[in-house]
């Protein structure tokens, strides 16, 4: 599970460098996210623009990552590709996460 992180004053940006978050790697994704989030504080922005496919196990792992952050830190999402967006929409999880239509400006150069 390849993740690239960039720490900013109030934000940890994590880019997923994988084509898929699925049943074969959902646990690994959650474990790697736990590791990279441990060293930072503040909100976490998950850039999923390289992820072409997410199944219900992957969705469950994203929810689990949000829970790992606890009540005081937020998990936000950006770069949802069409099939990934469809899974969030049909399960109404699009109402649970703040989903950025585009990457926030400060990240466009970096990611």
């Amino acid at each position: 599970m390849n993740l690239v992180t960039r720490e900013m004053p109030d934000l940890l940006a994590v880019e997923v460098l994988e084509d898929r978050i699925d049943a074969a790697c959902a646990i690994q994704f959650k474990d790697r996210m736990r590791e990279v989030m441990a060293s930072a504080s503040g909100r976490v922005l998950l850039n999923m623009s390289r992820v072409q496919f997410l199944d219900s196990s992957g969705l469950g792992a994203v929810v689990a990552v949000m829970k790992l952050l606890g009540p005081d830190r937020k998990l936000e999402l950006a770069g949802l590709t069409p099939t990934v967006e469809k899974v969030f929409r049909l399960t109404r999880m699009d109402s649970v996460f703040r989903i950025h239509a585009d990457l926030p400006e400060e990240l466009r150069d970096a990611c």
Partner: protein
Amino acid sequence: MPAESRSILEGDGSVIHAQIGSDPFAVRDWLTGIFADARLEHLPEDLKGSAEIVLAEALNNVVEHAYAGTNGTILIELAAGAGALACVVRDSGHPMPGLNIPEGRLPAMADDLPEGGFGWHLIRTLSRDLTYCRQGGQNVLSFRVVCDD
């Protein structure tokens, strides 16, 4: 072959047959390959996306529940028609509880958010003509996926 799965596969084109092992990596490899295959790549992107979601959920259910982590074989048949993909998935694992397809009701959005229970909701939402039967010691799940409205 059961009548309903024979009829669901009557499309314009030929039937694609596949056989994979009961393993999440085998599911991933097959899904990745089949939607890039020349026989399906002409289908609309939204149809391919929906079909990949439904097939992933159906196949992962077989891996996790029917075979429950044991070795087994999953047989898949696909037939592409005009704006639709018909699918039949067979396995020799445990039958569905009560020999019924789960309702697939979306889990409640309580304070403690659900981390599972989305799979059958996705299958039911994105498929048409969903049927399940137990035949000759096999689970047979058949459905069609059509283009978005």
